[in-house]
């Protein structure tokens, strides 16, 4: 593929409230941790340039509110995602159980072209804490059962595996992107056709 083209990868981080989505994003982008991050309201994103297989790509990482009722608005930001990162807290089993519904909800709302191949990455966060309640094995098994989703055990606080996880996220997202480009052989022509169709339809309306 052309390496001249600037590549932007849109990554969505999802997971229950308080699992560490904002912290993971900030650790990866700013190499900082704070336990004073406020609960995310609405949505925000950070960008970071990374090098994947000698290509410079810009990752745009989206962070949304975790409480369930805010998801109906969060979906506005799912569109065009190249990878979805699902986060749970290894000390809170409920947050692990929610992964399934987060994944389903994302697939429904973002409706990617090839849902079965859409790249997800699972992060079990807060491994620095002593009161672990979800074992690595259990998490691993679940990931395997879901079409072998890559799984990382992370600590945003101690910067454990964060870089590695996001490298994988970028790589998988890029692979997805490249595939999409291959499918889309003549994007310009398709665009023109779409416009023509619209114009015709408008014309019809006017005539009525």
């Amino acid at each position: 593929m052309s390496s001249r083209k600037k590549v932007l990868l849109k990554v969505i981080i999802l997971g229950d409230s308080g699992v560490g989505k904002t912290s993971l994003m900030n650790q990866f982008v700013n190499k900082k941790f704070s336990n004073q991050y406020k609960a995310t309201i609405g949505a925000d994103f950070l960008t970071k340039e990374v090098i994947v297989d000698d290509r410079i790509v810009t990752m745009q990482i989206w962070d949304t509110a975790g409480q369930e009722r805010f998801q109906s608005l969060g979906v506005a930001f799912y569109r065009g995602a190249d990878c979805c990162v699902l986060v749970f807290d290894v000390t809170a089993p409920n947050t692990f159980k929610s992964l399934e519904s987060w994944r389903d909800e994302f697939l429904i709302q973002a409706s990617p072209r090839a849902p079965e191949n859409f790249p997800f990455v699972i992060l079990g966060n807060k491994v620095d804490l002593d009161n672990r309640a979800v074992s690595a094995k259990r998490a691993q098994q679940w990931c395997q059962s879901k079409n072998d989703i890559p799984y990382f055990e992370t600590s945003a606080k101690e910067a454990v595996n964060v870089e590695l996880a996001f490298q994988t996220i970028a790589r998988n997202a890029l692979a997805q992107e490249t595939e999409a480009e291959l499918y889309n052989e003549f994007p310009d022509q398709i665009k023109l056709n779409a416009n023509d169709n619209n114009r015709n339809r408008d014309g019809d309306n006017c005539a009525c």
Partner: protein
Amino acid sequence: MSCSSSEDVPDQCKDLFTQDGVLLKACIGRPIIDLNSIGMLCIVQNVDGGKCIEWRPNDLITIDSDSQDQEWAVVHTIGRRQRTLSGNMTSDYAAARARIIRIQIDELKTFRMTRNNQQMQFSTKPGVWQNTFYFQHGNAEIFLASLKNYVKTVKTRHDRNTYVVVEPTNEAQALNRSFAELDIFTENTTDVVWNLVSNFKQRPYETTLEAFSKLTDIVYYGNEGLNGKRDVSDEVADLLSKSMSALEDNTSVTKSDDYEVISVKPTLPPRPCIPRGAPLSTEKWEGLLDPDGRILEVDGVRQLIFRGGVAHSIRHSVWKYLLDYHPWSYTHAKIKSLQKKRTEEYFTMKLQWKSMTEKQESRFSEYRERKSLVEKDVNRTDRTHPFFAGDDNPNLVTLEDILMTYVMYNFDLGYVQGMSDILAPLLLLLGNEVDTFWCFVGFMEKIASNFDMDQAGMKQQLLNLQLLLSFASPDLAKHLASKDSGNMYFCFRWLLVWFKREFSHRDIMRLWEVLWTGLPCANFHLIISVAILDAEKDVLISGDYGFTEILKHVNDLSMCLDVDKILSTAEGIYHQIISAPHLTDQIRIILGIPTVGGRPEPEPSSSEETNGKTDEQSDMEEVMYQIGLDMNF
């Protein structure tokens, strides 16, 4: 009343107020040819100090070539400031002058507003409406407010829109004086004011109104219009070119197959610059309490707070009223017993969850989830503020206790993210756990729909914001829509917690107390949003910001906003909206003002935002006037 008067206008006559674009609809004793002509309605101070309402036909005050289109008539005052007419204009001028209508204010008996406040009728003897004027630009409300500075009126019982003049000028001045003596309104000294309600303040009226009429000049001619030293022909050329460019700016051309449709883009009236007032001071607040501790002038207090906020030293008292914890009409004794009752109630509810055993909890997942969410959020609420900073901070425990007790108070709603943000400044200010809880309850009453499970309240607000923005700042709304941002989701945080994340604690206290007054209309927080966005309009449009840039830019405004400036701008926008000629019922409903067809229908999903104050708010100016009367003791 001297309906037609052709005597020369003395040079010393002074325009106190002018309103352009006023159509003469009916006038007893006038030839039919005079009707439906457009002119300027003014309040004029005569040389003897008396005042009159004067309507001047545009023929007299315009130099507008052959334009037949009243909408685009270029208005130019010749009457007072400049009398350098020459040549072929004089005969027309004399004829036009004969058509001036003058109503002496001390002869005025009654007047009324009709047709959605766009029409005013005047009478000098009961039973006959001698003059009817139609206000093409906006409505007659600003004129009415100005007129009320010079006459004392009461509304008739049978018709809310009919005013009977009680006493003219002198009495009204006495009323003003009594205000000054009472000194309950802010001591603002800025003289550029265009605000209906501020007419009741003690600042000199004539300065205000003069500024107002100057504003009209500036709008039409720029500053040159004021000195009047230019050659008439220069001015004609200039005005013509300006009117042409105005036409270009304000019209849009749509081409269809057979026709070229030229439509006039509705524009808002100019935005008045409304200065903020001083905060409600301790002395004023104490002066407003009657000997038993009741507050009688509730609307006056609200108005003061709307204008300038509350001095920090008395916030802890005043907020309890604004947040409906303490009823305004309660005496000290009643408040004391209320507090006792509420304290007991609070601790009963607190005990309900405090006494829950671990085993109970283990079988109560819904409760457990809420508790865990509260704990998580409390630990990340305003931790950089000294009041909440540090490990084992007892104030965090209080935050948690209040939020958990609120879960017991309203289990259906429970805890929703954002609530800890709402609570923190209240606790910071009030300190006391029980007071903070009940004030929090009051605040939540105002914004409960923000936290709906299905988010219907938030969706409705985002939609309403989009509608208001389309009306007040159409270019920006268009840009946002073209960038996939028409859903206004980037304003979600603003609206959910009423801008808590955008301002420092000090500023959010000011903003909230102003919003709690419910003035000047329902959903003023949406106009605040419009004001912030409008200030960023140029950046967003000229930078061609897309979906992500818009969101980033808006998020990054946090802690970079000037609360007083925004409040002032928002109030200006409010006046622009309500005096816009093309104001729609859709917008009226959002702002809780009566629709053209009658009373607004309650909005199904946001009825709580209006707090049932629709009538009161829509007639705020009137209310303020009534307070003026009431306070004339």
